[in-house]
């Protein structure tokens, strides 16, 4: 105990500090260990961290307008807080110069698209302006407004000013259902609030899928854990079977099973449970998404649960029974608390996978069963990479928040994934 009280004074036999000697002695082993993980580290860096960093950068950076309109940029920089309703002649002069340059450099589309993200309908406006730019005579203000009255729009000038900087938070504003109006950024109307609603819906559906998975997986995992080895390995193969089947094949079988003219509906009609005229809609809506995703994600709940349950000795339950507890009390107070790390790990895994799930909702979700990932993919296909990146970043942030909450409430060291 006296040694612990004075750790700083400890030295080796030849007088070197003990800590230093230990570090030297272990350095070689540590370097070798590092070499072993280096390939993986490089792989993760290249295929995971760099793309994520790039995505985050794309969500705040877009030089589509700022690169092709230097004159206007300079003017905006020199005149902060100008009157959006009535920009002066110099502003219009700079704009016309830039439009002419765009026409020359063929960047009208890019610049127009950039403004179009916040002010819809500007691509054609820019194309028209650019085509006419080199023939316009001063005063440019009147000339341009004569060409198209939209050039005097307050919203447009606000949008152009915001886009004149390479870095912007506009995409996050759009992703948070804000809308650029003449008065600046405001909340969109009820029908325009699609992103936050979809985020909410995604989390809700993911939570529902997690709960269903947990309810289905718990008995299965328990059975796997208590059955003799020969029977449990057979059952384990059944659990893992979905993993060995293509996702597309699995999803297609659900379509065959659940669609309006599918097996289940035919069976129900044949049994007279539902009339032929009102067959159940179980595919191409939220029901389809939930059913198919639960099936896909079920093994991710079963496996962590199984790994936790397998090492709970049956003597705990026996002890509880011998102490006078009914089987229900034994389950609730002895067995269930000990499976908590597995429940937490499985739920976290299933929830995070569900929140980011794309292919199943895309195939079976129809219009109603789409999740946020499908919208991200939609914006990627529409080349609005920055908005897609902003939405993805918000998704990432919410998952990290969840992870942090989990760590605070349960502790990440209690996570048992298998």
């Amino acid at each position, binding site marked *: 105990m006296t040694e612990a009280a004075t750790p700083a004074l400890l030295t080796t036999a030849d007088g070197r500090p003990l800590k230093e000697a230990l570090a030297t002695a272990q350095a070689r082993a540590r370097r070798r260990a590092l070499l072993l993980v280096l390939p993986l580290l490089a792989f993760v860096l290249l295929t995971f961290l760099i793309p994520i960093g790039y995505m985050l950068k794309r969500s705040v950076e877009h030089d589509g307008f700022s690169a092709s309109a230097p004159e206007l940029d300079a003017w905006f920089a020199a005149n902060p807080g100008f009157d959006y309703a009535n920009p002066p002649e110099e502003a219009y002069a700079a704009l016309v110069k830039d439009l002419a340059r765009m026409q020359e450099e063929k960047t009208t589309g890019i610049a127009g698209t950039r403004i179009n993200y916040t002010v819809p309908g500007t691509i054609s406006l820019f194309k028209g302006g650019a085509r006419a730019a080199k023939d316009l005579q001063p005063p440019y203000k009147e000339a341009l407004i004569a060409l198209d009255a939209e050039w005097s729009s307050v919203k447009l000038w606000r949008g152009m000013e915001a886009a004149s900087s390479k870095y912007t938070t506009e995409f996050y504003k759009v992703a948070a259902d804000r809308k650029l109006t003449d008065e600046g950024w405001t909340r969109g109307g009820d029908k325009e609030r699609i992103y936050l609603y979809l985020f909410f819906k995604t989390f809700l559906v993911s939570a529902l899928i997690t709960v269903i998975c947990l309810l289905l997986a718990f008995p299965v995992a328990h059975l796997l854990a208590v059955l003799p080895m020969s029977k449990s390995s057979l059952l384990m193969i059944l659990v893992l079977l979905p993993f060995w089947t293509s996702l597309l094949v699995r999803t297609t079988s659900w379509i065959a099973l659940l669609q309006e003219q599918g097996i289940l509906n035919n069976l129900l009609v044949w049994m007279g449970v539902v009339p032929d005229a009102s067959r159940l809609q179980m595919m191409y809506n939220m029901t389809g998404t939930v059913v198919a995703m639960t099936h896909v994600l079920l093994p991710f709940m079963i496996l962590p649960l199984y790994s936790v349950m397998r090492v709970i*000795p049956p*003597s*705990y339950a*026996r*002890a*509880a*029974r*011998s*102490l*006078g*507890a*009914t*089987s229900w*009390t034994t389950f609730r*107070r*002895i067995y269930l*608390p*000990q499976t908590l790390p597995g429940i937490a790990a499985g739920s976290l895994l299933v929830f995070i996978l569900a929140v980011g799930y794309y292919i199943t909702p895309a195939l079976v979700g129809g219009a109603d069963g789409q999740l946020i990932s499908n919208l991200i993919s939609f914006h990627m296909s529409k080349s609005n990479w920055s908005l897609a990146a902003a939405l993805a970043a918000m998704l990432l942030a919410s998952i990290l928040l969840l992870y942090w909450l989990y760590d605070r409430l349960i502790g990440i060291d209690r996570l048992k994934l298998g």
Partner: protein
Amino acid sequence: MAQTGPNDAFVAFEHVQKSYDGVSLVVKDLNLTIGKGEFLTMLGPSGSGKTTCLMMLAGFETATNGEIRLDGRPINQVPPHKRGIGMVFQNYALFPHMTVGENLSFPLEVRGMGKSEREAKIKRALDMVQMGSFINRRPAQLSGGQQQRIALARALVFDPALVLMDEPLGALDKQLREHMQFEIKHLHESLGITVVYVTHDQGEALTMSDRVAVFNDGRIQQLAPPADLYERPENSFVAQFIGENNKLPGTIEELSEGKALVRLATGELIDATPVNVTEKGGKTLVSIRPERVEFKPEMMPPGAHTIDAEVLEIIYMGDILRARLRVAGSDDFVMKMRNTLGQTRLANGQRIKVGWHPQDARALDPM
């Protein structure tokens, strides 16, 4: 054969049979009565059926046939939580997510006991095993011996009349094990509870029990107090399983009441007490404890047969000296001598004559 214990049978097994696979019997026709306040040990090698018997008594296994009674009441159909039997498990089975206090509180809570009464009982049980200050610890923070004590306290806290112990000291080191044996014995005496104790450690069985049931092959081979078991084994299995034992195979030459003359394979004649041999000319296995073998003529009864022996090895063991002898063609005949001041020191290769009191040589079944 029915084996009757004390008159007031508290636990009774009647013609109990158990089969797991429907092909073979793990427990074959068990008849056993255990008296109130008795400390009964089920001793036997692994697979002998002793743990199965305990599990049937606790209610975790159902008897395939026969009846088990507790305090006169048949309990075959009573679920484990309604039997009111305390149990200590081999690996303690303390609930890892609860503190020591919560572990002890559990059996009282499920019985719907009030808080103040619970606290009093928990305190009393913990004091009983000298663990009063550990009430807020978790099982993982305790040593094996401390966990053992808590497991014991938890099995006793709800005042069961019967406590079952399934090799409770198996995981402890020798010194601690011996100490706990004493403590369990002491608790048994002071609380007046009935204990059924399962072990494969014969030393444990002999030190602690009122009676020991030696199990082998699904049957009780002998049910007797420790001294009887050691000194008067009824068959070759018990003789070999309990303590060290010299075996001399031979045939019965003469059989008169309480005495047998046995001719060994090498031709020598020895005296023995017949136990479960019945006829002249039958095969037998004579069993003699090493500490009852004598080599000084003055220690043997007059007229006893002696037999030639060659000292092969002397092992010094501190309190005793152990001599390995060649007797009747076998190399592993052992003789134990007390290490006293005047003890004759034998040398390797020395030729001596050994003999014994006929009572100490028991002619048993040839196995």
